[in-house]
């Protein structure tokens, strides 16, 4: 009887838990999983908004694989993502280390705030500032070049096929993202003092300690930043839409932007869905690889 009562309590507790999760699951089902299934089904059709879909099998996938943007846009995406991963790993981590190395708590606090403040500026505003104030014909870069007698080097930085992709990659220079700095700072702050003391006793200081002790200890944070950067790199296209629309030609095109153009500008929703499904597979694969190969110290030890 007592067992029965305990079992019934457990069941009620579990039902209660499931009941609490249910609204979230329902929302996920309606707003995430249903569109995913819808997108997959539409990727097998010729579908234009306002028309009835027409079954075409895998021809949208076949067409995309031979699309002139396919290789070019994936190459651009890989370049921009790799570049972003690199700079978001190195620069904010270095800055976080410099901040945490400051002796004065007041100074540490000041610099944390200083690097965090730019987060409040909307990304679109940042992109527009770079496009108009920095890269445009009468922007900062060209004016500077003109002022120092290098007028011949002046460019349409975002419109010249040779410079457009690099110009996009360099937006955000010097790449001290406040969010990343904060994450790394939090990681570095949790390194036990005993570890730091042991390193000091063993003679590990400066760059050697940073590379051999600090970096391995913040691998969890690195993994998070890498995962977020890769996902943003594969999915994201807003900045390129604002800056170049993937031009000149397809020199700055990325798959997400081509998906957007096909879906909403060219009204080829079925084709856009096929691109979306391929992107989903790519993101899922890269995330799985990241989880598999970039394990934190604790996980390695376990």
């Amino acid at each position, binding site marked *: 009887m007592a067992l029965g009562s305990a079992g019934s309590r457990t069941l009620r507790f579990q039902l209660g838990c499931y009941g609490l999760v249910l609204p979230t699951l329902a929302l996920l089902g309606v707003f995430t999983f249903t569109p995913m299934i819808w997108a997959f089904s539409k990727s097998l059709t010729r579908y234009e908004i306002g028309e009835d879909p027409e079954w075409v099998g895998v021809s949208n996938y076949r067409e995309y694989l031979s699309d*002139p943007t396919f290789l070019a846009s994936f190459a651009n995406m890989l370049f921009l993502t790799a570049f972003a991963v690199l700079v978001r790993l190195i620069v904010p981590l270095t800055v976080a280390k410099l901040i945490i190395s400051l002796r004065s708590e007041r100074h540490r606090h000041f610099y944390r705030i200083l690097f965090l403040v730019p987060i409040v500026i909307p990304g679109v505003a940042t992109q527009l500032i770079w496009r*108009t104030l920095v890269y*445009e014909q009468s922007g900062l870069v060209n004016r500077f070049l003109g002022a120092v007698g290098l007028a011949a080097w002046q460019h*349409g930085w975002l419109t010249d*096929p040779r410079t457009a992709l690099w110009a996009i990659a360099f937006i955000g220079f010097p790449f001290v993202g406040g969010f990343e700095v904060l994450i790394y700072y939090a990681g570095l702050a949790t390194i036990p003092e005993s570890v730091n003391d042991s390193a000091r006793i063993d003679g590990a200081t400066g760059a050697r300690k940073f590379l051999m002790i600090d970096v391995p200890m913040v691998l969890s944070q690195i993994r998070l930043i890498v995962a977020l950067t890769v996902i943003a790199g594969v999915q994201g296209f807003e900045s390129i839409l604002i800056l170049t629309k*993937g*031009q*000149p*030609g397809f020199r700055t095109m990325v798959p997400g932007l081509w998906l957007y153009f096909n879906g909403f500008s060219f009204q080829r929703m079925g084709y856009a869905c096929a691109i979306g499904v391929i992107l989903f597979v790519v993101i899922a694969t890269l995330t799985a690889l990241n989880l598999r190969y970039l394990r934190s110290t604790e996980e390695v030890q376990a």
Partner: protein
Amino acid sequence: MSVARIIKTVFGVLIVTVSVLAFWPQRQTDGDVAATSLEVGDRSARFIIHFAPGWGNMPGTIPHGLGKPLRGIREVAREFVRQFPDTCIVFRNVPVSDREWLVTQLMSGQAPDVINVNVEDVWVDTHKGWYLPLDGYLEQPNPFVPEGEPGSRQWWGMFKYQAISRGKAAPIDGKMYCVSFDMIETGIFYNKSKFDELGIDPPQTWAEFEAIQNRMQAAGYTPFLTVIEAISDWGVDLLFDQFYAEILPGIDLVQDPVREQYLQGYLDWDEIAFLYGRGFFTGGDARYREIFSVMKDWRRYWNQDLSVRSMDRMRPFIRQEGLMIWDSSQLTHRLEMDKTLGFEYGVFYLPPLTEATSRFAPRRLLPTCVIGGAATQFSVTNRAFSDTSDPATSERLRRVIQFLQFMCLPENAQRITNESLQFIPNIVGVQPRPEMQPFIEILKRRYTTTKWVATFDLQFNDILQRMLGLYLNGGCDLDECLSNMERALELGAERAIHRKKPDLAMLERRWKELAPLRRSMKELPDGAR
């Protein structure tokens, strides 16, 4: 109180003060309020008409940032509401040129009742029931027009530029989905003062055009200011017209009963799709190649960056560093209203090509055609008859059409079109402003044989602009440029056939009938023989 606390307090007060001042509403005069208010009538009225008149007519807009805010259309709406107190007109500033916005709004029935949009953007969606054909209304009298006046027998009778207005019928079903309220045309604005100083006259032929650009460049000026949008649309159209003019009788397969009498040899979607299958508009079509080769050659006289915003393109012209700028009649407002403009300006049109410049130029000098045309094009959306879902019984739609008819009265059109120096009136009885005379002269020319390059297919249009920009900026060679365009054209042709389902057998029959004419034509694509 410590010094630190005082500094903090002062700093805090400063921030609050600056914030409050920044967000404090500006003082407005009664005139400003009248001009910028976007609602006319009572919101509780029976009919609330959402009206998107476009940037060039939007109440409160200051064209090019010079002059007074526009208020003409609002005054006309006020007059209308006085006659129809059960109506409220809400002006909306909406991004109709962004297809993602337009399509989603139309799909959900939430677009404004009337939008000012290039009707070419409407054509691709007409079969979806998102827009209302206006033929039935245009063929009936305008009820606001007194007996005997233009428009009293047919609303159509009110329009001055009949060829261009009627030519806006949709190629897919021949129906009219817009009211062409006023006109716009392109032209090359030039610095007359500098031309005089350099002893240069506006050119009569392409060869002269090249010669004067050489002289300007030698004198240290940027001869020609433009953007890729202008080149890929206007440039391609004009050169296409020049190079294909002489072979048009051999390839113009369809004589559209409605539009042909006005457009004379206009090549439509189905013809383009068919001709593409015969090798036209590909890398193997020498005339098509020539369009882009001529452009590449011309490129050396242009501004370096072809993707600049209008402000950046205009700046060198205003500063007299660039001596010609290719723009629409809307630029007239900018130049006329600028009291500090340090030079006289003039307008000429792109000169025709001669055999001295290209082997495909017409043997007899053929003046370049008109490529502009209707500016404000009012289309009525599915929202207008949302009360009954049936245009035949919708009272709301009746009121929307009445407002359009009311706007077309000469005294009302005069208030709207002539309020700024952007457009040319298209209503009989409205005199254009004298500053628009150069464009009125240009509009007298023969209309283009094709606008298909910009309207044939949304994706093709995008890729044309991309690849042309890349080619002109040295990012690829002509073959790569054309092969990308060709692939897009192939897909576009397939879509056009899928959408319109043209009578291909009839096209084939006409193609064979015209074969004798083509025999004497030189350098046609292989498939055209």
